[in-house]
């Protein structure tokens, strides 16, 4: 979808004037991509050496290095891309003009916690917590709906996989305690 931008690239997001040659936010994105590429490029030098006779002209680092060079080349164009897109009436900033709301980070952390505790408390308990906790975090307050959902949905899903598809989930302390 192409839209005529209300403001130039970079405006409103506090990233500097639209007329600048470099898009400030894309410059940061490009630097992150370049940093990842530099790190991976450095890692390729740490691959084990293979004698030429065994490598058959295909050293393990050659292809990744070629690919990283291509990515680096493309990443260098990123801060200038807004100039071309502005001419086409494409707003590169429309999806990132507003900062992510705190709920995004809260949801992300909650998911990390749920997955983190699964080896300790068990998969089923983790799923029950997710089914109860995530709706609450997202503002669900209808307990008459929430309680049956949080109990039934994860349990049925767990049973479907453990009994139907023979998946051995992590029992955790709760599973061990229940035997």
């Amino acid at each position, binding site marked *: 979808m192409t839209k005529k931008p209300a403001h130039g690239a970079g405006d409103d997001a506090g990233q500097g004037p639209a007329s600048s040659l470099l898009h400030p936010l894309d410059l940061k994105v490009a630097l992150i991509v370049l940093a990842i590429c530099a790190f991976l490029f450095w890692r390729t030098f740490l691959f084990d050496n293979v004698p030429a006779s065994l490598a058959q002209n295909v050293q393990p680092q050659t292809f990744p290095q070629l690919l990283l060079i291509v990515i680096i080349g493309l*990443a260098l164009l990123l801060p200038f891309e807004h100039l071309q897109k502005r001419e086409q009436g494409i707003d590169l900033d429309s999806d990132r003009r507003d900062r992510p709301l705190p709920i995004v980070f809260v949801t992300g952390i909650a998911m990390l916690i749920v997955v983190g505790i699964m080896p300790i408390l068990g998969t089923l308990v983790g799923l029950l917590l997710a089914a109860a906790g995530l709706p609450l975090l997202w503002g669900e307050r209808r307990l008459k709906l929430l309680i049956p959902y949080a109990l039934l949905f994860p349990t049925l899903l767990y049973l479907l996989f453990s009994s139907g598809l023979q998946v051995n989930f992590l029992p955790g302390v709760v599973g061990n305690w229940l035997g």
Partner: protein
Amino acid sequence: MNIDAILLGLEIILNPVSIMLILASVLLGVLVGALPGLSSTMAVALLLPFTIGLDPVVAIAMMAALYCAGTFGGSITAILINAPGAPPAVATALDGYPLAQRGEAGRALGVAAISSVSGGILSLFIFIVTAPLLAAVALSFRPQEYFALTLFGLSMLAAISGKSSLRNLIAGFFGVMVSMVGIHLVTGVERFTFGTTVLYDGIDFVPVLIGIFAISEMLKQSQAGDAVFERIRSVAVRLPSRDDLRLIWKTILRSTGIGTIIGILPAEGTTVAAIMGYNEAKRWSKHPEEFGKGSIEGIAGPEAANNAGTSGAMVPTLALGIPGSGTTAVILAALIMHGFRPGPFLMRETPEILYAIFVAMLIANVAFLVIGLLGAKVFSMITLIPRTFLWPSVFCFAVVGAFAYQQQMFDVWVMLIAGLIGYFALRHGFGPAPFVMGLVLGELIEKNWSQSMIIFNGDWTRFFDSAVGNLFFAMTALSLASPFIKPMVMRVIRRFRRSPTS
């Protein structure tokens, strides 16, 4: 024609269990397609772990059926509540909703269903003819030619829908990078394993797919409010009248052709097909002024095209091992997961899969005509499911699915991390579909490059010895340059038009 393969394909699919599973997939597909935010790509990714214990051919057939039905499902909510459940249905809403507002929701749904089914079935016949032919041609390809073809497939990422070709390419190449984690095929050297044994076999794409499609979208949806849609309540579905059919049959045929060709092109998806189908329907219509106000040609065009695109997208996926869209990239991953060798060898080693998929998609097309028409009102109501329950359910599915695949927590972490990175990458325009296509194609492209280098004794100039290879290299260059060439061409055309002497 391989009669044994056809019979075997039919035998696998035409039994009660397989048909039930395919019908369940159709139902799931229509549901997912109708729900804004949930995509058929995500549904296929979440379905993957469920199919572990199934017959591999049935598993792939289920996914193909879900893909078909999911594409149609989006049109129900597009017509009834002006909320396209899936991106390909965006163009359908332009005329479907105005027609529904005029009290003709049933007619709009009928036209959408008939157009979808016609487009889907007609293009299926093109699929069954072209896929084996394409595979037969591809069988004669040498590694350097296959490398050039795969490179062309990757370069088409530049054209995949999204705002930035550059970001699509970067995402795709990062996908290829991720596919390199683990043991190098030629030398047996560990690459990017960081000394850990869990990365020794590489990063499996199943948890990555689940994370990048489900978790990223969930994080995106976490900040979206509950949308309130104006619902069309009187839905008495009726099939198109003879006059309607007379008006739309040419549009259906044209859009089927467009959709199939767009679908066959690597990396182009059904959304592009639908938009092109709509534009061409308008261009060729005798009443273009009615478009946007409830034209049935405006519904038939995108609907026939997007469903034709699904069969078209299966052609390069099965015949060449190069996905025709984001969803087929996931289906390609499923083929690999189930032990198939996608590409021309698939047709030679397991030809029955082609016919099984053909029959499954045929069943799916007929089934969603019935399910979609009879259950349109119910499907439009599923948007009432609160997102506070819908997305936590998706998370539970994602966790269980990622774990079930290899029964290890490492995959759940991979899924979660892929989802978190995917969310932030998506904010900056790096789409999940290009990344997944790069991830799935990564091994193939490096394998063919390595084989060529061994054959050429390290002389890379010999990549240009083959005429077929050169053709693909030229197409790759053209495809990569297209984002830069297109604006220039447009500028020249605009200047030419403005010039009074011209």
